[in-house]
């Protein structure tokens, strides 16, 4: 019987695990050879997200706008802070952050909720978080619609060619999203409360990043807390938010050096989390 299958027809299974390089190579081969499966999973995910609520995919447009409104009321109206065209400043941070947060919250349960599949079919489990992260891109892409609408309607003078650099910054973020989701989806198999924890950590992370304020304002405000200042230096979101603010709000080029540093960091981080995932993978079927 001729079955040019995507799964091997001969396998040897032992207790030995390949080394770090072997695991990474295995991971890359698995993801590449199962592209079709990932595509189907992404399609299924998007299809479902669009159908189970009244407004469907429209929420991807409405959500960031509402969130922007809330922060605008909080910061500009109540605390009398925020700079010129502050709503746009807010929106250019909320949009990528929402993508990051939803990628993580969707991806965290990607392995543990596929429990029956994991127990009954042999397939590379890595496809699950990868598909969740790829599906998350839609969240960001749809969010660009209200962004451009906002700019066309209210901030026409802020439209610059640097807007074309959004995908570049987003690509760097995507690597980071992937790293986080791969790690957390594996850990969530063992500890089901990673999701609860992540929600709060994410919220704190957002406030400790220069999202609602510029980096200078945040450094100034936290000058009495040297720990927070040190964390700010390590925080990839300091660079990412600054880059989004630069290309969307200020219409200038991002800090390329910092961005490339974050990219390299994110790639190393993704490699690390992939290894962790691959090391834990053999136990998934036993624990789930």
């Amino acid at each position: 019987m001729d079955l040019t299958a995507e799964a091997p027809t001969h396998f040897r299974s032992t207790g030995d695990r390949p080394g770090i390089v072997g695991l990474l190579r295995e991971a890359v081969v698995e993801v590449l050879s199962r592209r079709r499966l990932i595509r189907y999973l992404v399609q299924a995910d998007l299809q479902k997200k669009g159908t189970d609520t009244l407004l469907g995919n429209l929420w991807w447009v409405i959500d960031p706008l509402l969130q922007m409104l809330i922060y605008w009321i909080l910061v500009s109206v109540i605390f009398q802070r925020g700079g010129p065209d502050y709503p746009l400043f807010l929106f250019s941070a909320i949009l990528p952050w929402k993508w990051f947060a939803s990628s993580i919250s969707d991806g965290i349960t990607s392995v543990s909720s596929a429990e029956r599949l994991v127990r009954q079919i042999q397939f590379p489990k890595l496809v699950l978080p990868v598909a969740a992260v790829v599906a998350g891109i839609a969240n960001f892409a749809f969010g660009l619609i209200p962004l451009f609408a906002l700019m066309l309607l209210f901030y026409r003078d802020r439209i610059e060619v640097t807007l074309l650099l959004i995908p570049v910054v987003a690509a760097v973020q995507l690597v980071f999203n992937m790293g986080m989701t791969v790690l957390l989806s594996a850990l969530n198999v063992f500890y089901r409360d990673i999701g609860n924890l992540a929600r709060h950590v994410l919220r704190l992370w957002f406030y400790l990043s220069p999202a609602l304020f510029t980096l200078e304002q945040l450094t100034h405000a936290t000058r009495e807390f040297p720990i927070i200042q040190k964390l700010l230096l390590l925080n990839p979101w300091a660079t990412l938010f600054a880059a989004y603010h630069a290309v969307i709000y200020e219409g200038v080029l991002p800090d390329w050096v910092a961005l490339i540093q974050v990219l390299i960091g994110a790639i190393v981080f993704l490699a690390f989390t992939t290894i962790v995932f691959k090391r834990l993978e053999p136990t998934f079927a036993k624990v789930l």
Partner: protein
Amino acid sequence: MVELEGPPAEAAPAPVRSDAPVAIEVRDLGVQYSLRFTKKTTLNRSFINLFRREPADAFWALRDVTFRVVHGESLAVIGPNGAGKSTLLQVLAGIITPSEGVVDVDGRISSLLTLGAGFDQDLSGRDNIRLAGAFMGLDAATMRRITPTIVEFADIGPFIDAPIKTYSSGMRARLGFAIATAVDPDILLLDEVLATGDETFRAKSKQRVLELVRSAKGVVLVTHDMNWVTEFCNRAILLEKGRIIAEGDPIEVVAIHREHSERSKAERQAALDRAMQEGGVSSLPPDAARSGVGR
């Protein structure tokens, strides 16, 4: 022509020459479960465990298991609940990796463990077929070829384009069976999936399983139905507590299994009687404590 209950009367397959090509080779297989992590572990629970320092949290579901299946053989794996039979099938399917030892599998495997596993309730039957095929690693061309067969065999009419959540449980089972059996594998792993759906479909599915058994190069069957063992298998293994207790001619192995289960039933009864006499039901038979582990 529809034969309903009991396996068709056929002569049991003859023993196979031992120099036939090997389909499955298992050497010194051991599978260890850690009891530290279970489905419901939370950080809270594991902090408690940390303080308790429970020492004995590992358990061997399989140990020192060695056997081989050559082409033309169908091997029955029998034994009491929690003996490690299903774990063994999961290892052969590549789902669980051994903690020690080596498993070599040569040929395309299909496990009928996969019956309707992980159907996505919100997707249509057709989308689920596509997804299941991709999970099983079947390429696009094969899927295009077998999808009509699956749809026809499952026989759920226009519902095939409706979400699975609108299906009756019978329809779901039929679709699951149709997907799992759509491809003729080289090596077939069976785990008690022989009764599915209504009478008519049960006959039809039994027919299909028999077809697969005949066309496969090697079969491993886990079952409690001893008729199947003696009727369709030319070798049998008796597993108890993760170890091979007996191996050989199905009739003999089944006889040993019967004897053992009678004895343990008698022992359990005796233990229960003793407990009743002592006025408490607290001392349950040892097997009951482990029942959550052997899946």
